[in-house]
């Protein structure tokens, strides 16, 4: 009998606890996240786990969001200076920093981490391609020697492949990290890792930034794929912030009693590649006609519920390399018809295939808008939804037999336009990877490389070169730049300090947040 009473008591107690989840929860928060983990190895990570990595590990410096007073925030470095020829960068390191296991942070850790990343050569390690050596000057000074004058500070601040991990992890491999281990200098430690279910970002007591002032101390990440469940969790107060809710529910969440949506710029953009290798899209006039026939406003209003802006060129607004001087294509159906007529297709009269990634609900929403608009100028578009890997491998196989139009969502690895401009449009020979317009222009290739190597020493000159390069592209129109995405986090109104930094896609910096 006594046993039963104890059980009943426990039951009542746990029900009572359920009824009052807010008690003592001020320092704890729940984040219902759709962002999964593909690897926990900071040297290899190049995917959605960035959302957590950037809270566990730190880079030497961090790029501030556009419009900030300072270009960089100083994390593990307190400052840096460049040699005159732009080939050497010396960083002064922060003193008194500890890794999660207590190991002190020194120049050795910097050398070890970056060399581990380049040695493994996985993920985004390619961003260090121009690195010659890392020289330790003393415990708190380190010099990066480069082969070319590339913008090293941006590379050191990259969202991927630039994290500093503890040298005490020397004998650990990727498999060890993937069991749920981590050892960084960031404000949070990884705990209680249950792959595919949940994990905890727990306060690191010895964080160099300290814990005075209001900070979220423990974040329970509840991995939740379904947008509808994330919405329910947010609205019922079970989660303080979520990653993704159904597009139609944004107005309700924005004006909700307890909920809101935090907006900010993102460097993610959508584009449509034209297959330049065969008729009719090998004709620049036809491509220009199509670029003028795309209903940009409808795509924004219907496809994105207003949460996007019309793209100008390949570089999203706010990122270095963006400029109003880049020619923009606007919706103009009259102009489109005229260009088609000049190209010898006065009433259209041809068919095109368009492919998009079936996993991407956004593309599914706006692809039909393009189709119906092209219909107006006499062009029939066949839309093919393919699983991403299929869409991509078909496009890479043989350009002559590939799609006519390829929809792509893109974002840069680090805060510099070179990688985007290089990957998407440089001559890839007969092995296409990301240049899915199969476009070739040696003058362009030359210009962007020049710009890249000038960025560190003469940013104004570099910008000018980038603008010229982009205008070369716009004149040939191999790609229609559709929209730049507006980033957003649906969240509780009680959650303060949540902001968006487009250089670090989908990273909420929890240390800057607190619950009111």
């Amino acid at each position: 009998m006594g046993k039963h009473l104890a059980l009943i008591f426990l039951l009542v107690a746990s029900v009572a606890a359920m009824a009052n989840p807010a008690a003592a929860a001020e320092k704890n928060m729940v984040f219902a996240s759709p962002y999964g983990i593909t690897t926990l190895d900071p040297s290899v990570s190049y995917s959605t786990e960035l959302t957590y990595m950037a809270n566990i590990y730190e880079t030497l410096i961090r790029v501030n969001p556009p419009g900030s007073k300072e270009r960089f925030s100083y994390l593990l470095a307190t400052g840096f200076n460049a040699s005159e020829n732009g080939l050497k960068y010396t960083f002064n390191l922060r003193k008194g920093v500890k890794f999660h296991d207590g190991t002190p942070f020194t120049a050795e850790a910097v050398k070890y981490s970056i060399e581990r990343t380049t040695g493994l050569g996985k993920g985004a390690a390619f961003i260090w391609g121009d690195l010659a050596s890392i020289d330790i000057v003393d415990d708190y000074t380190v010099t990066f020697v480069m082969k070319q004058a590339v913008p090293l500070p941006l590379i050191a601040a990259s969202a991927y492949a630039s994290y500093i991990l503890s040298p005490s992890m020397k004998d650990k491999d990727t498999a060890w990290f993937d069991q749920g281990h981590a050892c960084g200098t960031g404000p949070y430690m990884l705990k209680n890792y249950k792959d595919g279910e949940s994990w905890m970002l727990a306060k690191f007591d010895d964080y160099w930034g300290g814990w005075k002032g209001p900070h979220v101390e423990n974040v329970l990440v509840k991995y939740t794929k379904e947008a509808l469940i994330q919405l329910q969790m947010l609205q019922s107060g079970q989660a303080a912030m979520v990653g993704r809710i159904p597009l139609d529910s944004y107005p309700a969440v924005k004006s909700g009693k307890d909920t809101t949506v935090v907006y900010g710029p993102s460097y993610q953009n959508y584009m449509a590649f034209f297959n330049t290798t065969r008729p009719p899209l090998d004709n620049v006039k036809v491509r220009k006609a199509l670029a003028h026939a795309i209903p940009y406003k409808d795509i924004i209003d219907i496809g994105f519920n207003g949460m996007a802006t019309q793209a100008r060129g390949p570089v999203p607004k706010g990122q270095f390399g963006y400029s109003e001087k880049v020619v923009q294509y606007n919706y103009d159906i009259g102009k489109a018809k005229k260009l088609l007529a000049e190209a010898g297709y006065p009433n259209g009269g041809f068919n095109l295939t368009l492919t998009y990634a079936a996993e991407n609900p956004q593309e599914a929403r706006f692809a039909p808008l393009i189709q119906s608009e092209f219909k107006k100028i006499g062009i029939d578009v066949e839309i093919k939804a393919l699983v991403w890997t299929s869409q991509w491998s078909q496009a890479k196989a043989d350009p002559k037999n590939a799609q006519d139009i390829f929809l792509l969502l893109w974002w840069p690895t680090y805060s510099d336009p070179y990688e985007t401009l290089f990957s998407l449009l440089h001559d890839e020979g007969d092995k296409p990877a990301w240049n899915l317009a199969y476009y070739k222009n040696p003058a362009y290739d030359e210009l962007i490389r020049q710009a890249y190597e000038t960025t560190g020493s003469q940013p104004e000159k570099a910008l000018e070169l980038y603008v010229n390069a982009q205008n070369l592209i716009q004149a040939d129109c191999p790609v229609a730049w559709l929209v730049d995405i507006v980033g957003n986090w649906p969240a509780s109104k009680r959650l303060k300090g949540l902001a968006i930094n487009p250089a670090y896609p989908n990273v909420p910096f929890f240390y800057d947040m607190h619950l009111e």
Partner: protein
Amino acid sequence: MSLVPFLSRRLIGLAVMLVALSALVFFFSRSIPGDVAAMYIGGMAKPEQIERARQELGLDQPLTLQYVKYMKKLLSGDLGISLRTHRPVFQDLLEKIPMSMEVVLWAIALAMVLGIGFGGLAALRQGTWIDEGIKWLSSAAVSIPIFFLALLLQLIFFNLLGWFPLQGRIDTFLEFSNPLELVTGFSLIDSLLTGNHAAFFNVAWHMVLPVLSLIAYPLGLITRLTRSSLLEVMSQDYILAARASGIRESVLFFRYGLRNALSPVLTVVGLSVALTLLATFYVEIIFNWPGIGYYALTAILSLDYPVLMGVTLMIGTVYVVANTSMDILRRIVDPRIK
């Protein structure tokens, strides 16, 4: 009754089936267009990285050779590496199987007890409103699509009544105060083992709706089959003879009727285990229950073929094992079966 030849026959059958199944899944999943190496790299892979991964994973070799290599590894218990999580598939399965089996076993056990009970009751009260009601409900339980039932249960018991939680296996606030520590992977057992009573009740509470969703189909099936099988048995001549010789009606029903009627029911229970395991594909997505169904579905969507192979082989094995154990049970209740 000699079990040894029977079991060895079954084991050989299992091996043959698994080989056929693995070949089928391997060649089908690999003939879907898609770049497996690019998938493994993830993100914005560079061409040279993809090439390197292709070699690393042996994807540049002929498909048949890849299959032979896979099977060789399989014999030593190595199911390969997941392309998405980059973790050994075997380890992932070991973690996910208990999570699903916990729900599946509850559903099957309850369906068996309740199904035989309801079926027996309906047969006993044949033609009354109780019989009609049970018949109607069991038909409904068999016909309702599981994912629809799951959504319906969420709508009623979470949205309208608020009695049961929406999703997950434990409340998030408990993860701060009484985090669930996994020992065996069965969360109810583990929470008791670690003396975490708060977690135990919380997990049980979270399990109600998924179990209810999964129970419907086997419950309906078992109820209907018990009823019809029992009616058939009870109309046999030997029952009439027994009744004429004055055996008590309850003894007649339980010892002579029900026991003989159970044999076909047990066959269906074996089938139900495998079917219920498949049903978790829907239920786990809807209830955000991170078990094998959730894991497999993610793998399907990302062409993660080592995982697909692993899950298929596992479900195939469960299917055979469940059927075999039900056959053994049938032999025990009905010694005539050879």
